[in-house]
């Protein structure tokens, strides 16, 4: 089932001196439960593309359709609600809410969505257990390692069962062991939860584990390989 479709998407930044074509006529489709990596050199437009897919930025032209909704037709307030209900985010620098515990961080989005407490608690424990932090549910981010914080961030992104999760360089700040653990957890969750993961990454370990690798150069898709 198709969860995300990009049709001739362009993003052009107009600075005073030069015009930067950050994303150039990108057309892509993502199916349910894909585990895809967007790779490419610095400045190739990976993060811009991820921001466009996530509705954090608007394309200059083209269409981004998520579950039948064209993002360009949504007002900014509708976009926030759309993100809340459809997209999970994992950021490079974890970006957890520092005053909340691991459990509270994970259930935060479900609280915004007004889930009943019992269901919220059940889902939170299930996810934290799945990311290997069942014993650290009451720890604040400052008491967790970088890898543990990123695992909480993954659990948070998955909490409300979004259509897909966007992960911008999720392993960039992690050591090798923590990165491998995180990737294994994400792959397992992708398999168990049937949620699409889209990464932007430089990390060869991510590329190695991805089922699909999309390569960008100067904002253009130069290759789109699916692994068997």
């Amino acid at each position: 089932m198709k969860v995300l479709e990009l049709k001739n998407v362009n993003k052009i930044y107009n600075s005073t001196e030069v015009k930067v074509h950050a994303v150039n006529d990108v057309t892509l489709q993502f199916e349910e439960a894909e585990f895809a990596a967007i790779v490419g050199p610095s400045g190739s437009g990976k993060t811009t593309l991820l921001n466009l897919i996530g509705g954090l930025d608007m394309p200059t032209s083209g269409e981004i359709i998520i579950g039948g909704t064209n993002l360009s037709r949504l007002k900014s307030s509708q976009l926030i609600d759309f993100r809340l209900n459809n997209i999970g985010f994992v950021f490079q620098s974890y970006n957890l809410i520092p005053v909340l515990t691991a459990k509270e961080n994970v259930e935060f989005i479900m609280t915004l969505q007004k889930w009943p407490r019992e269901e919220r608690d059940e889902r939170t424990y299930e996810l934290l257990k799945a990311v290997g932090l069942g014993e650290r549910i009451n720890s604040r981010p400052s008491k967790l390692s970088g890898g543990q914080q990123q695992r909480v961030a993954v659990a948070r992104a998955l909490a409300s069962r979004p259509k897909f999760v966007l992960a911008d360089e999720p392993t960039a700040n992690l050591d090798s062991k923590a990165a491998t653990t995180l990737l294994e957890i994400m792959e397992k969750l992708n398999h168990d939860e049937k949620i699409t993961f889209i990464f932007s990454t430089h990390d060869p370990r991510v590329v190695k584990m991805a089922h699909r690798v999309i390569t960008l150069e100067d904002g253009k898709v130069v290759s789109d390989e699916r692994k068997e």
Partner: protein
Amino acid sequence: MIWSIAWKNVWRNKKRSLVVIVAVTLGIIAGVLLVGIMEGWINQRLHDAVYNEISHIQIHNNEFIKNEEIDLTIRNLHEITRSIDSLKELSGWVKRTKIIAMANTPWANAGVIIYGIDAEKEKQVTEIYKKIVPDGGGYLDNQSARDILISDKTAELLKLKQYIVTDSMIEGLKQEKIPGNVLVKLENLKDIRFRSPKDFKDEMKNVFSRKELDSYGLLITGKALDYRIRNKVQITISDKEGNPVQGIFRVCGIYKTTNTGFDQASVFVNAGELANLYGGNDILTHEIAILLNNIEDAGFVKEKLDPVDRDNTVRTWKELAPDAAMMNDFMIMYYIIFIGIIMLALAFGIINTMLMAILERTKELGMLMAIGMNRGRIFKMIMLETVFLTVVGAVAGMLSGWTITGVLGKTGIHFTGWGEGFEAIGFAARVYPILTPEFFIFITIMVIATAIVSSIWPARKALKLIPVEALRTE
């Protein structure tokens, strides 16, 4: 959860939050004290005006108000007194004779208003009988002939207030643990009669050092004070034909209220004794003073009494003491002005702190917007943080202010240096701060309003963040 995040965010930077909380606490304490003192003063002024000077309602002949002549008595007295007696709201009432007079002693004279009263009935309406100064004799007695009750101020003007250092006084001071060298210096003033406080104070300045005066001056002055009770005072008035008539009265007591102006003007004698002086068979009634059970009923009672006789004027305390009425009516304005200024100053501190907090948390706010926290919730979170920050300080301030005011409400604050000035305008030198529940409701509303208003700017700043840009900040 937004409430919980907002509360936890307040304590993220404890030092910075505590600075704001302490500022709010101190601001509220200052506000509570200021208003408490103001309320105490106004309450005291109103109480003293009503219970010492004017009562709730007074009735006079229309013409007497313009020209206080002896024959301008209240018209239709019988009908009026019957109407007063039928009032359900009545606490007590009195008739008075009121004549402008000249008081003389061998040493001085002063213009006064002499009131002819029924001393016992007067106790139902005024509290002058409670205001007799220590060693100042006693209140008027219905039986005593030719007695006069004068004020401390009148005694001073008539030089019936003298200062004399005696052996017995020095003995008394020894019990108060006054240092020996001070008592030795005091011997220099022994048995000298000073007829005014100024003369005595000037001489004390020559004898004692400034430090000794600051420490013991008030005590020595108090002990040296000697009222010339039973001294004669000659009262001169005009009789009904306009001829001057004199009578001799003896000072039975000295009173002192908080209003020097009233004290200076008012002396009291038994109405019958005054009638003997101006001649005639009847006691003249120039003034009726009415005390009600509830001050709020004054306007209503005036409306009831007004039609009884149009030749008389019925006035409420608000008309008789417009200063007290104005202060009472404007109390809410004082609240708004005092607390408003304090809140305005605090608002800038709160805004500054919250703007710093927003600046520091730009990336976090960007993340919250990215993952789906809408603008309404962001606004609510910032507003709640501001309200919590302010309310914590306000609660601490109100509790501290309430405690301090409670203690001062019992002990009073004595403005020693400004006592005479305050009393000249009818305010007590010792004020007992008062806090009313209405004030606490008012300050709670003001604090929450300040917090909400202060949150608007920082919250708007947060709302203007663009998630994708905010997420890029380090």
